[in-house]
């Protein structure tokens, strides 16, 4: 618990620091050098905390209009949250299934091979290529698979969701296949094999259980990967999500709120993954 509190405090200050960075760093035009100015920081942070304590999220600038953040953040938050939850969970499930449970079959080897190649390519290149492909696909067939209109509904969100799922799936797949291979050499696996247990049984009861801690340990990193991609994807695919507050304005208020929303999303996604694992164990391993 102490560690949790510590973490929260550190994260709080980290986010405030990040949101305040743009007003801290300036260029000195006379000497053409970078300058740090701290004089506006306490005021900005003070304002932020005061706004929060009054139960308001403050306002942000959209074009020439000043709007309360609280009015707009709900929809944006839900959009990002849905994309993240669906994307990350789907990615994890895919990587688990293909990494452990059906990885030994000949058919899945092709899939594994593709995964291995894809995982060598940085996510942002995949994202750009996916966009190019979607547009080319439309030109060839006339079938529209993406829409860049912010109000296009499901058409606007399914493609980003798929892209979000890609990074966790690839990352986890790589990790799981290495761990699976390593775990396969352990003595308890030999014992299980010697006892005549079926491979599926070993996978569920010996392998999965021993790989699970590693997955939990990497979960934060996976979610942070996905969040990183979320920013890119929302930015270039024109999705109305929380990144709007971060990229569209340079106000401390909006950026801090955006970052906290991002944090909340990571937390919810984390919980959702843990719940998924819990259900999985209850359902298949009968713990």
């Amino acid at each position, binding site marked *: 618990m*102490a*560690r949790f509190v*510590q*973490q929260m405090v*550190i*994260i709080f200050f*980290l*986010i405030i620091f*990040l*949101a305040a*960075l*743009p*007003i801290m*760093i*300036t*260029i000195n*035009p006379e000497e*053409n*050098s*970078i300058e740090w100015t701290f004089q506006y920081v306490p005021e900005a942070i003070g304002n932020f905390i005061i706004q929060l304590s009054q139960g308001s999220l403050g306002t942000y600038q959209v074009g020439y209009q000043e709007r309360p953040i609280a009015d707009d953040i709900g929809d944006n938050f839900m959009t990002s949250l849905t994309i993240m939850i669906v994307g990350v969970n789907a990615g994890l499930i895919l990587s688990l299934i293909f990494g452990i449970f059906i*990885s*030994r079959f000949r058919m*899945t*080897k092709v899939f*594994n091979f593709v995964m291995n190649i894809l995982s*060598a*390519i*940085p996510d*942002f*290149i995949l*994202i*750009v290529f996916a*966009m*190019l492909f979607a*547009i080319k696909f439309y030109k060839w067939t006339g079938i529209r698979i993406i829409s860049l209109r912010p109000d296009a509904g499901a058409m606007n969100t399914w493609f980003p969701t798929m892209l979000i799922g890609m990074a966790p799936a690839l990352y986890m797949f790589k990790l799981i*296949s*290495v761990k*699976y*291979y*390593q775990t*396969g*050499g352990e003595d308890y*696996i030999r014992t299980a*094999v010697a006892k005549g247990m079926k*491979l599926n049984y*070993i996978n569920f009861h010996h392998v999965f259980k021993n790989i699970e801690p590693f997955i939990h340990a990497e979960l*934060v*990193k996976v*979610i*942070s990967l996905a*969040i*990183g991609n979320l*920013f*890119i994807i929302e*930015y*270039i695919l024109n999705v109305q999500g929380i990144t709007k507050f*971060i*990229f569209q304005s*340079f106000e401390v208020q909006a950026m801090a709120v955006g*970052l906290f929303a991002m944090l909340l999303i990571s937390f919810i996604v984390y919980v959702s993954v843990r719940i998924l694992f819990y259900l999985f164990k209850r359902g298949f391993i009968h713990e």
Partner: protein
Amino acid sequence: MNKLLRINFPLYIGVFFVAILLFVCIFGPMLAPHSLTTTLEVEYKDGKVVAPPLTPFESLDYPLGTDKWGYDLLSMILNGLRYTVFIAVAVTIIKMLFGTIIGMYIGTWRKVPSFIVAFENAWSYVPLFLILYFFLTPINYATLLEPNTLVASFIIIASMISIPSIVSSIRQKTGEIKQLAYIEAAKTLGAKRNRLIWNHIFPQLKESLLVMFILEIVYVITIMGQLALVNIFIGGTIVRYDPLIYLSVTKELSGLVGQARGNVYGNTHILIVPLIILLFTTIAFSMLASGLKNKFQSDYQRTPWIKTGHEPKMYPKRKQYDNAGKFYQLSPNQLAFLALSITFVAAGCYVYFTNESNIGVKQESHATYDLSLDMNNSGAFTASGDLEIKNLSNDDWDSIVLYQLKGISGAEIDRITINKKEVDYVVSEETIKIKLPEEMKSKGKHQISMSYSFNLPEEGKTLLAEGGTLRLTEWYPKAAVYQAGEWKIGEEIEGINTHYTNFSDFGISYQLPEGYSIASSADKDAASGQSSGNLKMKDVREFSIVLLKDMEVIEKQAREGVGLRLFSGSGDEDHLERTWQLANRALQFFQEEVGEYPFKQLDIILDQPSTQSYPGIITMAVNKEDDKAFDYELVQMIAQQYFKAAIASDPYNHAWISEGMSAFAASLYLKIAENQSESQAFAVPIAQMKKIEIEGLRSQRANVPLDELIDIGFISGQPALQINQMVNEHFHLQGYEVNEVSSKYLADFYKQYQFSEVDTKEYIQFTSSYFSVPRGSFNNWLSTKASR
């Protein structure tokens, strides 16, 4: 077949690809077919319009196509790749170094403090690129900071913020190893922490560190790519409004991808080409990493008891200890690596030595001189010249053209041999034309030997009698310039040196009678008073010699060790001292604002028949009535050391480049260093244009051939004023302040074209991309259809 499958392909391919990448990083700019300011211009070719953007493989000149504005994609990639790879490697080195050391030490602590873990966790929640985004947003968009500053700050910040994640994973790995029995044993035997870490833990980590290192390179490139997608380009983002576009300063690869992001809808090649190269870069490193991983894994891993579907195909390789030490027994792998290294070095040498500068006008001939000069007491010279003239063009030469000897009397050529064969030659007023025999036409190199004699000209009589100075004008046969299929010879114009020569290397030996000495273009003249010696000089457009006898001289060191000498026969010491001070101030200004002075010595000779600037030598005409005009001329002549002597241009067709740029530079000196107002500083150019107006002359563009020129003001005052106006109108694209941008413009121009040749077309390309103005904006003072 199985044997084939067992080869560690990723390792070999990875090594090979990374070698290619490194090669391009080092030699890329040399391989680039165009400079970064060259644009493809719209033209008709065989009835078709060739206009940017060209698609890849459409034109041989632009193999990967051009972007919307006509810049060559291949050249941008070749120039930008080094930034991408070196920045990624630099960041990785820093973070791995600190991360590993800190991680290993923390990992060996008995208990890791909870705040460290809390910090690591908190830190890993926020995507790294976002942290960098917040850091770089305030500084990246303005182009005020130098690209190097921005690159350095990126390297520092990126490595700092990614250290915690490295620490975390190294700490965990160390913690695992620390539990092993052999560490326990080492401890029992009395090993302290340092020994444990460096002798027991580090060797265990070595291999995974190597793999991690290479993967982290890919990771840094990923971060750069993510930043580029939100328009933060490493090294600076240029923002242009209306329409809103973002451009990368360094042409770094991910920046190229980012700036072409709008091209997903059309002209996709502008986006796809850099993207594929970037993909190749990351794949190369990933392959190398996975190859190494395969190797280590097969060497150390236990085989699983169940079928996992992830089995490596390779067999482990064990160390062969009994063969160790026999260096001559190379394994196939080592042989292959050796072959690769040798190819790398050989290809590098080849590129380095055959590299033709792609900056400026292409050079198609090059001359090297070996001259000797002998003078007797009565002023008669015997001289000989060995010239080596290289044909760098694709044509066969019918003849070689040298300029006729001039400004000396009684010049007489004894004989000319070419490649040790006597040949026919035609001497005209202007030139000596040597006909090449049939068998020599296709040769790439010609040796010309010539011996000749001449006497001092009429003006030289006083030198013989009373002492003084005399510049030997055309005392050696200069090789003309071959360009675009012909020898470029301009008609002679009275009072202007129209001899068009290019950068050449000189070696000269001379012998003078007692009491004479010379000042020359060479970096190191013999001390005054010495009457014989050898001089050497590389990369000068001509080699000027001034004979001296009994002259007054001020010789002092100016800034950066440049020897600034002033010669005068008048005996007016005040004038001499004042002139030296002015020359020193002007030289210092140009050294500080424009760039390094191209030579080691500057000789200024007063009281000469005309005011001229030659490499390393300035002759000043007598002009005592008007100090201001004298001062301006002197400063302009010093500026010509930069813009005429160190940057070549055709003095017949593009004379305005040296005249106009130096006039602008001189006015700038008055404006910045002497704090004069703009109208005062530009008084001379303005007066020139006023005079034209009063005389009612028709207007003329600056790049007319000299025989059509009606007034010198058109090639001197006009460009100076026009350049100044252009800077005044567009300076905000390059900085805050007019003066600063003006001198930066000169400095960048000088840096770009130093020791290469500029013509009007090059000038327009450079300036239009510098200030983002269309070519049409030069129309009122330059003819944009100018032929080369």
